[in-house]
């Protein structure tokens, strides 16, 4: 199963693969949350909802249910790179 923004750990980055255009607010797309863009999880609120992300130069806070809809591929984990 592909991962979503909700699967990111704080500090991790990913590339957006797929966004369900029908179920995501237009605003999110307008802010540059589009396939091919890099997304970074900056912070999590208590109870892990909402999520504070950075995409296309904008800082956005989105609900967890929204984050679960946006499919990404995780970028190479920095820790793994350092280990190898």
């Amino acid at each position, binding site marked *: 199963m592909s991962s979503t923004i909700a699967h990111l750990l704080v500090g991790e980055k990913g590339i957006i693969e797929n966004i369900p255009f029908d179920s995501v607010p*237009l*605003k999110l797309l*307008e*802010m*540059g949350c589009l396939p091919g863009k890099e997304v970074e999880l900056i912070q999590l609120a208590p109870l892990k909802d909402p999520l504070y992300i950075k995409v*296309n*130069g*904008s800082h956005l806070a989105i609900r967890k249910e929204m984050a679960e809809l946006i499919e990404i591929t995780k970028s190479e984990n920095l820790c793994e790179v350092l280990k190898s």
Partner: protein
Amino acid sequence: MRGTEVIKVALVGNPNTGKSSLFNQLTGLNQKVSNYPGITVEKKTGSATLNKNVTASIVDLPGTYSINPTSLDENIVLQALLNVDDDYPDVVVVVADVENLKRNLFLFSQIKDLEIPAILVINMADQIEKKGISLNLDLLKKELNSEILLVSARKKLRYRST
């Protein structure tokens, strides 16, 4: 006023890009400016004398990320651009923040799509050197088919090139 031509100019742009700063510089008025989005929530009008025969009536509009309104103040921008009121602008000045140019250009492309005459003003140009931003203005002008100005409203400067 006899023999005086008035052109209507609308300032449009993302929140917190310096529309009101530019407005104050152009009109000599003292509209409230702060360094966070959402300060301007209604439209304000001022005027600037361009030369003996031409006066510009400048409208400062609330910041918006797109022309699809999601709030009351964003709706003001749409109304101004869609000729709902009688103060339809002759030219739209899209004010963009040099640090978030990509996001700002989305709004610019929407306004271009409406076929309203528009020019792009890239504000906060004093940040270019500081932040290590490089801009190919000539290419951008060609791609957007528009006039582009580099300014710093706060420092009252216009930049010729990078």
